[in-house]
């Protein structure tokens, strides 16, 4: 009885215990179930965001300029480290900066971020060590080019854009972050699980620029050599396709300054004589002059509104074409008086000066173009010579592109295409005309004037042997912030159209404050243009249409103009010439502007300042100087040898069948190079 009673009590306790368990289980499962499930999920899973890979930036040919890659950041949590020496050794073995960690340990830091980023493969061996924390980080990798970096800009440490296209096109490049929920094991490491889920990030769009990487490289290299050898403060080179407005290269250099922006877009300058062709265009467009009209240039000196304007080489009179060819200040001022101040202002305003062009680069400068009501007495003449007006190199190139393409001012653009990650084209740039700034006929006439500038004017050093180059040099005094124009400080520039008759490039070369005997645009900027063009011709892909180029080759190779000694002008030789230019004996500058040059000489009572210009060539010799020569005697030579001999003499050859062997014109006839010589071989 006693035993049964005890058993009943035990059973009762067991039943109560079982009921308690069931009740507790019921409470956990039914009443608190959702909380516990949530708690379990928090322990077993974790959610996070996945940063989207930033879009790539490519050049016009598809070469990668900027891309993102995943790297690893290494951190050490010192309290979690069991064996410090072992960890240091492992870090050293993985080529991680163990010294920085050692120094931080000495300072008793608990959390140590190792400087730098490492590839995942390099630090894979560290992932299982206690106290080592590896965090994946997307790193932006830029092409190793200063110019490209200035165009595309950069990101800060958190991946936010700071400047350049990275900032301007951030909404396109950054993509959409993804979300992820992963299971985690007992050590907290992530595991894929059927209960997890992933919302994949959407990578940023790919931006294709109009920049041609090869041409950009050429421009940066030649600019660097020029700035270095001429001891200039800096310079810019801009190349544009005049038919589309595509910016093909944008190189800038500033000595001793860290610039993050592209100065070709952000720093305006007084362009000097490079504006004269637009004055000529305006005169022609408004019917105020013809290219052959002649003005009295007063033997290179006039006094106007209380100052003296002079040319270095004196001429009694010059035609409008010759004013451009020899960059005559007196001539352009004389011709410019036929335009009203409003016409002058509108000419420059229509070319886009004084307002931003709208390229997607932050801090684009608008330049300076004052309205006529703000002009002083001298402004009307100054603006004709490219003073009292400031333009960016890109604005100037865009304006010259209008001359090159028949009169349309095109909107310059840097972005050629934007593609989504799946290759769908989201945006494609099309050439967009802003306005017609001159008629096609006027554009062609001005282009012919610019051809003459390079053939026999102030910029012969830009000329090529096999292609025509058109262009205009400029040399402008530079100002300082407080002192006005600074003696001996110049901006030398040259804007070239290549090829001269059917331009594919508009090239601007600008050099700031070159130091040396020569500072004129025709002396130092034109040769840089020439070497850029040569390098572009020799490059495999420099955005040139070679089929069109072949059609633009000169029919006569005027060797004497370009290469009088018949030498091969190697890069080294060109550099040598440039260095001689900078350091060698003085010789007359070709195209200079020096308001202070005569200030010391002038009579103070006159209250005048002087403008001076040097002319490089005799004004009498307007005709192209191509030496005529005799057609060689090829009798007795094989056909191959005969063709070679005639070609070597500078003539073109056509083979014809005839009863007798010989040439027409006959051997010994004096003819200009490029003449077609018919070589007859006997019919068999």
């Amino acid at each position, binding site marked *: 009885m006693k035993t049964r009673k005890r058993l009943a009590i035990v059973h009762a306790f067991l039943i109560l215990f079982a009921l308690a368990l069931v009740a507790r289980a019921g409470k956990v499962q039914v009443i608190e179930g959702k909380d516990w499930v949530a708690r379990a999920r928090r322990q077993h899973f974790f959610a996070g965001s996945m940063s989207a890979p930033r879009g790539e930036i490519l050049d016009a040919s598809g*070469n*990668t300029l900027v*891309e993102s*890659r*995943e*790297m690893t950041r290494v951190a050490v949590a010192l309290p979690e480290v069991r064996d410090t020496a072992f960890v240091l050794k492992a870090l050293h073995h993985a080529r991680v900066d163990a010294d920085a960690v050692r120094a931080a340990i000495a300072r008793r830091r608990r959390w140590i971020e190792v400087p730098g980023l490492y*590839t*995942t*493969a390099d630090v*894979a061996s560290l992932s299982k060590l206690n106290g080592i924390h590896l965090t*994946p980080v997307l790193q932006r*990798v830029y*092409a*190793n*080019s200063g110019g490209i970096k200035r165009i595309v800009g950069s990101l800060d440490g958190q991946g936010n854009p700071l400047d350049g296209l990275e900032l301007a096109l951030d909404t396109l490049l950054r993509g959409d972050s993804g979300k992820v929920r992963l*299971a985690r*094991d007992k050590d907290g*490491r*992530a*595991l*894929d*699980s*059927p209960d997890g889920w992933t919302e994949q990030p959407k990578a940023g769009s790919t931006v294709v620029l109009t920049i041609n990487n*090869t041409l950009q*490289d*050429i421009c*940066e*290299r030649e600019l*660097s050599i020029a700035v270095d050898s001429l001891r200039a403060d800096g310079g810019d080179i801009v190349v544009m396709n005049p038919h589309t407005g595509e910016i093909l290269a944008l190189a800038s250099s500033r000595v001793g300054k860290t610039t993050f922006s592209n100065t070709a877009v952000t720093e305006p300058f007084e362009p000097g004589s490079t504006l004269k062709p637009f004055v000529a265009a305006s005169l022609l467009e408004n019917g105020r002059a013809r290219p052959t009209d002649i003005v009295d240039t007063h033997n290179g000196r006039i006094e106007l509104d209380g100052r003296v304007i002079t040319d270095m080489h004196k001429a009694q009179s010059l035609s409008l074409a010759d004013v451009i060819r020899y960059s005559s200040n007196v001539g352009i001022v004389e011709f410019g008086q036929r335009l009203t101040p409003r016409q002058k202002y509108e000419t420059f305003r229509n070319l886009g000066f004084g307002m931003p062009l709208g390229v997607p680069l932050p801090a684009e400068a608008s330049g300076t173009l004052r309205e006529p009501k703000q002009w002083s007495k001298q402004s009307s003449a100054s603006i004709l010579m490219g003073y009292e007006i400031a333009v960016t190199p890109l604005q100037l190139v865009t304006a010259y592109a209008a001359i090159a393409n028949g009169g349309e001012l095109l909107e310059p653009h840097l972005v050629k295409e934007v593609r989504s990650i799946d290759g769908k084209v989201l945006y494609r740039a099309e050439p967009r005309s802003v306005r017609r700034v001159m008629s096609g006929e006027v554009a062609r006439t001005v282009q012919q004037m610019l051809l003459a500038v390079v053939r026999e004017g102030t910029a012969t050093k830009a000329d*090529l*042997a*096999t*292609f025509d180059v058109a262009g205009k040099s400029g040399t402008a005094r530079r100002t300082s912030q407080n002192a006005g124009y600074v003696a001996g400080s110049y901006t030398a520039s040259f804007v070239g159209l290549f090829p001269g008759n059917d331009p594919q490039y508009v090239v601007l070369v600008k050099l700031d404050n070159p130091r040396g005997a020569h500072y004129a645009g025709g002396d130092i900027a034109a040769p840089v243009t020439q*070497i850029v*063009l*040569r*390098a572009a*011709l*020799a490059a495999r892909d420099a955005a040139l249409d*070679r*089929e069109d*180029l*072949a*059609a633009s*080759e000169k029919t006569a*190779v005027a060797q004497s103009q370009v*290469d009088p000694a018949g030498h*091969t*002008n*190697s*890069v*080294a*030789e060109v550099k040598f010439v440039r260095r001689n230019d900078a350091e060698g004996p003085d010789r007359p500058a070709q195209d200079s502007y020096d308001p202070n040059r005569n200030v010391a000489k002038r009579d103070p009572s006159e209250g005048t300042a002087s403008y001076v210009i040097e002319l490089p060539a005799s004004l009498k010799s307007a005709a192209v100087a191509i030496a005529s020569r005799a057609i060689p005697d090829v009798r007795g030579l094989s056909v191959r040898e005969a063709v070679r001999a005639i070609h070597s003499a500078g003539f073109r050859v056509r083979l014809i069948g005839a009863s007798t062997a010989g040439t027409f014109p006959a051997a010994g006839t004096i003819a200009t190079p490029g003449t077609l010589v018919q070589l007859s071989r006997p019919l068999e």
Partner: protein
Amino acid sequence: MGLVLGVFVLVALAIVWRRTIGIGQSERLAALDAKRIGLEGERARLESEIRDASARQTLGATVERRLGMHIPTDKQVVILPRTTR
């Protein structure tokens, strides 16, 4: 009762075994994914180094100095017109 218990244990073992296999495969997948990302990073780094090393700015000075090469004059560049067929 014993049979039920036995079946329960077997099913439980099967589930644990299946999960263990799944976790193992998941770890291997995660390791391979990390390796893929690492290799892609490495590829990008090497491509970037190749680009920099073959850039005109790097090569230009070297080939001029060591090999005596130079940019040809425009006369030395021959552009062949495309023949019409």
